């Protein structure tokens, strides 16, 4: 076969296990809350915080709101990963009495540079207007999440870590809560010695803040027939945190090498401290070459003369990966609210690719949702009708305005780097008036991937890759997963749903898609090393479908 179309080999969403009716059996325990938030990321925690504040203010009216936040990581922040350069706007709105210096940021952005890279050289480019970061802060999303979580707990929010939400509980068209994943299953899926049954949590309103490629958000949209103008598309970001000998004093972004011209993406390097540097490579998952391996490309990137001097003599302290929704304005679901449910943050697609920003949009969506939910609860009616106010408010907020302005920018790059660049420039110059139409986009899985004849084994992407003396700064996928802090139980049942007709070529393609070495092609057959998974969701976009595992599985990011 000359090309692979990933969609042909993907399994559909396992709807029968994702959407359950409220009274169904199987749960050990049942807890009732007023508001349930799925995901303790910036969106979920901002929502919880704003709700708790509103609840306290209105205390005279009645009892305090019972708010619960479910988080699949063992400890707050362990599944959070981002660059990041943060716009403090949403923090200021959430905490009007605090100053920027009180917020969990590392350093203000002072200098920044954008480069176009070639294999051994670089061209300094003027910083595109969409990418100006003056007044913003370099931060670690893990630290942000831990900080928000502590504030939320101070206000009485119940944060339940180690509890992934596995299914939606529904009554008619109403979302009434979620069921958590069971834990302690053995490799064959049967209860082992440490077995703990799932729990049901019911609430008047459920806010889905699962982050990128949220499973329940996808399921709800499919169940309720909610569509978007364009399908959502994704990029995969692979990131490393280094303690360096050479200090870094500026924020760096690059485009070009090592990406092929028909792939969209770029790299970043940010100083959390002068000698603590975050760097990563982000690549759109609509790339055309079946052998493209983002982790491998990052390893090459580190040896470029721009990056190498900073990293030489330093130490890799953490590694991680996560996908980013890139579809922008036209990929937002037509409604992000329904009976008893709202969708926040990355799960809804509130990310602006040209400025590489999502955290403050996530938080802002959480704040807006909290106000809507609070009003709906007071009116005693958490129905689609009342919760639609959330959509209306978002559509009139800077979230929608910003996303509209850059609505076609990422999409233009489907035509390649040069044409894309020209169109993007036009969009920038006209402040989003050009073009007057929507660029159609295919879902990533529908895009065909060229097979390159004669791929050499041991190429940097394969899990078997071992860094040689030519690439001393490179790390293999096996060691990278170790650096993500992943300590998932080895005997856990696999959480990935393989599709059909997975040939040797498709297996090899998967092995390049996954940055964590979950997939290998061994003797022509797909081998799945499920415990390696770091929940980046690239597999869900292009390969086997992802479902949640027992709480605490996956990475343990500390400062990513």
């Amino acid at each position, binding site marked *: 076969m000359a090309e692979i179309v990933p969609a042909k080999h993907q399994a559909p969403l396992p709807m029968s296990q994702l959407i359950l009716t409220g009274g169904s059996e199987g749960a050990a325990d049942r*807890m009732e809350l007023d508001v349930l938030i799925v995901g303790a990321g910036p969106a979920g925690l901002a929502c919880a915080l704003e709700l708790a504040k509103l609840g306290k203010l209105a205390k005279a009216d009645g009892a305090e709101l019972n708010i619960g936040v479910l988080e699949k990581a063992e400890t707050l922040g362990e599944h959070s990963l981002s660059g990041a350069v943060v716009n403090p706007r949403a923090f200021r709105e959430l905490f009007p009495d605090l100053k920027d210096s009180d917020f969990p940021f590392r350093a203000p952005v002072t200098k920044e540079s954008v480069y176009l890279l070639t294999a051994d050289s670089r061209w300094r480019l003027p910083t595109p207007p969409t990418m100006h970061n003056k007044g913003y802060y370099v931060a670690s999303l893990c630290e942000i999440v831990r900080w928000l979580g502590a504030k939320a707990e101070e206000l009485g929010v119940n944060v339940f870590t180690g*509890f992934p939400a596995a299914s939606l509980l529904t009554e008619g068209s109403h979302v009434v809560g979620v069921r*958590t994943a069971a834990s302690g299953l053995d490799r064959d899926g049967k209860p082992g*010695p*440490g077995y703990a049954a799932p*729990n049901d*949590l019911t609430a008047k309103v459920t806010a889905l803040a699962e982050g990128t490629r949220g499973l329940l958000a996808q399921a709800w949209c499919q169940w309720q027939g909610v569509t978007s103008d364009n399908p959502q598309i994704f990029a995969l970001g692979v990131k490393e945190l280094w303690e360096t000998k050479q200090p870094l004093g500026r924020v760096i972004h690059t485009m070009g090498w090592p990406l092929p011209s028909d792939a969209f993406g770029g790299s970043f390097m940010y100083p959390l401290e002068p000698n603590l540097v975050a760097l990563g490579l982000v690549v759109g998952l609509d790339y055309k070459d079946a052998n493209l391996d983002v982790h491998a490309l990052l390893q090459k990137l580190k040896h470029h003369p721009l990056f190498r001097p900073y990293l030489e003599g330093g130490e890799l302290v953490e590694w991680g990966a996560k996908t980013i929704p890139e579809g922008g304005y036209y990929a937002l679901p037509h409604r992000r609210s329904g009976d008893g449910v709202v969708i926040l943050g990355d799960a809804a697609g509130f990310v602006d690719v040209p400025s590489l920003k999502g955290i403050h949009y996530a938080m802002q969506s959480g704040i807006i949702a909290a106000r809507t939910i609070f009003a709906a609860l007071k009116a005693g009616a958490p129905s689609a009708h009342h919760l639609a106010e959330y959509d209306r408010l978002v559509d009139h907020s800077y979230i929608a305005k910003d996303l509209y302005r850059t609505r076609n920018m990422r999409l233009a790059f489907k035509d390649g780097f040069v044409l894309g660049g020209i169109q993007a420039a036009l969009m920038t110059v006209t402040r989003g008036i050009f073009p007057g139409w929507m660029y159609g986009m295919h879902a990533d899985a529908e895009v065909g991937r060229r097979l390159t004849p004669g791929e050499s084994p041991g190429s940097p992407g394969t899990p078997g890759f071992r860094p040689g003396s030519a690439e001393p700064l490179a790390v293999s996928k096996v060691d990278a997963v170790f650096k993500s802090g992943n300590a998932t139980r080895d005997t856990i049942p696999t959480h990935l749903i393989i599709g059909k007709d997975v040939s040797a070529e498709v297996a090899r393609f998967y092995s390049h898609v996954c940055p964590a070495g979950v997939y290998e092609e061994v003797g022509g057959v797909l081998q799945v090393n499920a415990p390696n998974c770091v929940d980046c969701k690239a597999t869900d976009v292009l390969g086997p479908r992802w479902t949640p595992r027992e709480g605490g599985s996956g990475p*343990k990011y500390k400062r990513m």
Partner: protein
Amino acid sequence: MKIAVCIKRVPDSETRVKIASNGKSLDEAGVKFVLNPYDEFAVEEGLRRGEVTVVSLGPAAAQETIRTALAMGADRGVLLQTDTVPADGYEAAQALAAELKPGGWDLILFGKMAIDDYNQQVGPMVAELLGLPCVTAVAHLEIDGSKGVAEREIEGGIEVVEFPLPAVITADKGLNEPRYPALKGIMAAKKKPLEVKPVQLGAGAFEVVALTPPPERKEGKIVGEGPGAVPELVRLLREEAKVL
């Protein structure tokens, strides 16, 4: 039974150890703190046998550690709050013994050691100070009324020990399978009583000179080829590596 379990807040076992600038302590930036894993066995054993009070000696943040034990099912907690716990284990033992003395406990449980300092002493020292019988590193425990039988691992076998109650037991891995806090337990933990008592410890008689990284792992060597290399390998393992 009325049971006290002494617990400690320690850095997670996967912590990447960085030395603080004073050269004498752990740099705590970004370190995740957890309930000492050996103490989990102690808490679990207590929960299976009676009413549990958890006692911890540590900084204010140790309240979170106590809440973890409360979420598992313990009934109440006491924090003996102090910012610095000296390197001298006897000081810690004295503080805990003073708190436990009036309690009339049937059983006092500890983990056999803390995974940060590896001191392996506070439990038996507290027993000594309270004049109670003590069995350490217990991997199996049976209690019948006011008598108990414990099993502990020793080189080449298992020591079976009898003792009367009240007693102090330090728990080893394998004593039981600690439970995960249930959702309801996490919520209930917030309402359970947690008393904070500031304490002042003596400096103790141990003075920390330095905390240093371990010696660098030397580059490995290929000893030889084929079975002929084995005698040399064994010699190196014995004399150089000292593992045989």
